[in-house]
């Protein structure tokens, strides 16, 4: 029987600069949230990568199935009329 896990996986998100959204950077192993934050700091921000960190238990993430990506995102790729360039605005009218 495997030894009882003494830590679990956390996903790490970094805000690179003031005002930007946090972006996923990677994962760390840690026993609790506080240790996860420290581990994330040590692992992912040794060169001034950010101004804020979030850690989220990996188990809390529900992900879409990559195998289904084709059908899942197809509706967003077949609608050119959702883009501004689909509409004819004469040059004389200027930027719109």
């Amino acid at each position, binding site marked *: 029987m495997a030894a009882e896990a003494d830590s679990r996986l956390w996903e790490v998100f970094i*805000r690179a600069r*003031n*005002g*930007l*959204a946090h972006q996923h950077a990677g994962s760390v192993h840690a026993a609790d*949230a506080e240790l996860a*934050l420290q581990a994330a700091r040590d692992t992912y921000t040794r060169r001034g990568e950010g101004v*804020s960190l979030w850690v989220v238990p990996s188990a809390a993430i529900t992900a879409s199935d990559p195998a289904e990506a084709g059908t899942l995102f197809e509706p967003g790729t077949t*609608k050119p*009329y*959702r*883009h*501004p360039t*689909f*509409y*004819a*605005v*004469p040059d*004389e*009218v*200027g930027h*719109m």
Partner: protein
Amino acid sequence: MYSQALDQHDRAAPDAEPEAALARFQARIDAEEKIEANDWMPAAYRRTLIRQISQHAHSEIVGMGPEGNWITRAPSLRRKVALLAKVQDECGHGLYLYAAAETLDVSRETLVDQLLTGRAKYSSIFNYPTLTWADIGAIGWLVDGAAIMNQIPLCRCSYGPYARAMIRICKEESFHQRQGFEIMLTLARGSEAQVAMAQDALDRWWWPVLMMFGPPDGESQHSDQSMAWKIKRFGNDGLRGKFLDATVPQARYLGLSIPDPALHFADGHWHHGPIDWAEFRRVLAGGGPCNAERLAARRLAHAEGAWVREAARAHAAKSADALAAKAA
């Protein structure tokens, strides 16, 4: 919930004197630092943002009504898919904004309840009817055009989640305005009846659109503090002026006339005649042509969606039970 989870790591309000905390907060604002959900902020800043963001969200949602009115009667498939896509976007804008408001520790249910009970306001513009197809062109061109003028400075708002939601929204607005202008241009180059329809739409929407920017700077209730907190970056009159300068030449290109005999060009800018602020206040207070209809539509949609919310809750509870059974 998002903000509660964040609060676990939050050092609550500093123990320092409120004066010192307020000064520190203002210094952050002055240094162009973004305020984030788990940062300390004055209660009034939080209240102001909740009010502004939720009213903005309500406007996006209520705004689906006047345009949705024409989806089934759009004159071509091209126009129909464009209008559908636009109304979908407006719904999305409402959802981005409700989510941004929720980071301030207010629940979605509370906000929706404020709208349905008439305690929360939404943009006065959506209380006017869409009588003809040309109104769909006028809304895209003018209402979305005015919204863009208002929203671009909000991308730099001091509250991070609101600013980021606005960046996403602004990226999507360009299509809205262009599809509206395309409709107007088609009508303006069409038959006599089509030109008349376009002119009629401009006549009815022009003044309500100018009112969208809010009362003159001197009379605006919340302006000064919002400026100091960098929630707002420009005064109402300045934005109205920018809109005018952008829009008057577009109307001329269309060959349509703006229903303002006092409109004139001076000092490099267009200037409008007097705005009927009594009408603005009347519409905002509930006395516009469609206020009752708009709210009734929201209440009906909410009531008719009750079984969906109930079913989703039941399904979630069932899945949680199944998961617990599997783990046991």
